[in-house]
């Protein structure tokens, strides 16, 4: 039997959807499941973590863990992994996961695989599948170590609503880690904004929107749809959008039900971040824009005409 420890993906006190997705997959593989929640106030999430599919909930709660710091976070995960005798540790696709996974892997003497989209277990043989080269190829990777630490790409697995675990809370002491990288300040994301990586609908704005007025207009569409609001790199470079809104190989990987690309031509790096979306709608005035090669639905037109009309039509159907 394989023991899979899932690291709870918690943002601003809320459990993100990826945790249930990972636990569902772990159970589908026939594994014993546990979850580790690390943070300032995570105890109260235990019942949600059980409902999401874990049979044991390791809780590492301490005021010092309120703001993410990679070393103590990784040390807490290692502690839970050892406690659970985990064969695998799975992180959701987040900056937390990407920063912590290699540290955890070194400490557990485990193989480390980031951005995986599938994993198979056949007796002792473990193989993973992951995209590479800006999503142009897939790699099949054989794991040679008894343990594997993996970061799972957003949207790779689906949560099974039928799956539930049982509550078995194990409190662990926070690790004593001397970190040479101390958090002085956190400039928090604007509260109330929909998390891009967790959103069911994402609206992204590109160079076609030109300036702040264009950005605001597209943002209003995102607000109407209660969607995450993202951007191409061009808008970040132009200073019109924040770095953490960038969707693409270098930024956020998203996998919503609906991705609406407004005024985005479709550079390969951008496509690498959003081609896991179920349905893509593109709005662009250039009929030859590469985004139309991947979009399920395309509107060739000036976004300044089309976006207000989209808002109007959506209002009608939601009325």
């Amino acid at each position, binding site marked *: 039997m394989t023991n899979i420890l899932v690291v709870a993906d918690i943002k601003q006190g809320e459990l993100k959807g990826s945790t249930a997705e990972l636990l569902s997959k772990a159970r589908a593989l026939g594994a014993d499941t546990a979850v580790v929640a690390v943070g300032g106030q995570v105890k109260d999430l235990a019942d949600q973590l059980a409902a999401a599919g874990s049979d044991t909930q390791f809780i590492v709660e301490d005021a010092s863990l309120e703001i993410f710091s990679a070393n103590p976070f990784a040390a807490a995960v290692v502690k839970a992994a050892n406690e659970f005798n985990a064969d695998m540790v799975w992180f959701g696709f987040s900056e937390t996961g990407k920063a912590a996974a290699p540290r955890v892997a070194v400490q557990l003497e*485990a193989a480390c695989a*980031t*951005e995986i989209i599938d994993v198979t277990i056949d007796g002792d043989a473990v193989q993973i599948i992951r995209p590479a080269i800006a999503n142009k190829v897939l790699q099949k990777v054989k794991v040679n170590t008894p343990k594997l630490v993996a970061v799972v790409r957003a949207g790779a697995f689906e949560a099974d609503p039928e799956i539930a675990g049982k509550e078995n809370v194990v409190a662990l002491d926070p690790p004593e880690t001397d970190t040479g990288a101390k958090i002085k300040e956190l400039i928090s994301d604007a509260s109330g904004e929909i998390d891009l990586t967790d959103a069911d609908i994402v609206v992204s704005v590109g160079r076609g929107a030109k300036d702040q007025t264009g950005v605001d207009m597209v943002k209003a569409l995102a607000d109407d749809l209660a969607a995450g609001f993202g951007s191409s790199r061009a808008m970040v470079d132009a200073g019109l959008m924040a770095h953490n809104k960038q969707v693409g190989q270098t930024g956020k990987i998203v996998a919503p039900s609906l991705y609406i690309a407004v005024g985005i031509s479709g550079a*390969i790096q951008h496509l690498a971040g959003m081609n896991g979306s179920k*349905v893509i709608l593109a709005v662009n005035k250039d009929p030859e824009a590469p985004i139309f090669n*991947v979009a399920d639905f395309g509107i060739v037109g000036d976004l300044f005409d089309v976006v207000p009309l989209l808002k109007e039509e959506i209002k009608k159907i939601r009325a």
Partner: protein
Amino acid sequence: MKILTTVKKVVDVELNIHVENGAILDKGLQYVINAWDENAVEAAVQLKESHKADTTLVSLGSGDNTDIIRKCYAMGIDNAIHIDDPALAKADSPTFARVLQKVYEAGDYDLVITGKQAQDTDAGQAGIMLAQFLNIPCVSNVIKIEVTDDSHIQVSRLGDAGTEILDVTLPAVITVSDGINEPRLPAMRGIMMAKKKKINVMDLAGLGTSFEDVGGTAPTSEIVEFMPTEKRKGGQKFEGEPAEVTAKVVDLLVNEAKVL
């Protein structure tokens, strides 16, 4: 301050990649400097200009890396090392990190700056593992570096909850995002000077180690096969009167795709 930066030569992701019989075909491939490494080099050169840092570049891998190293020289890097060993062709991230550890230990550096990932593997592990092996601090996905004093820097990183500002004790490893800077285009004078500069090329034995010593003979994982990614196909594209087209598409999103 002594700074070590790393650069990797990677396939140009803009071009088509052909996969046949589980391997990437060599046809039509072109190689470029990893974009995030270029950000790392720019960050190092900026620290050289503002704080008189001494900058060394290391490139790992087999084959001719002269062009990318000359580019970094032209940007302003002081010294360059190329660990050119055919054994590294199939190395995994921990092995690369162990080689970097050997380079680091030979050079008494204060700060290592790497790109946050390589655009061929997209793994993002080697820099963080290097710090773990050296037991020194590491901050990843950094968008700003400021020198506080001889033994501290302040960095900003993009985290999940927002921008985190950290005080980092040196020596440390920093992995940078493309948001940190806009890599400079080297001036002609720099390009001419770069041509004359020496590249210190050595194999693993020259570095005082061996493939076995850096864990290469017992990789934690191995790529057994490459497969082409299933390509999305373009669907329905509508041109015409915006109001009509928009109403039609919203109807399709509601009734056909069922995503609204």
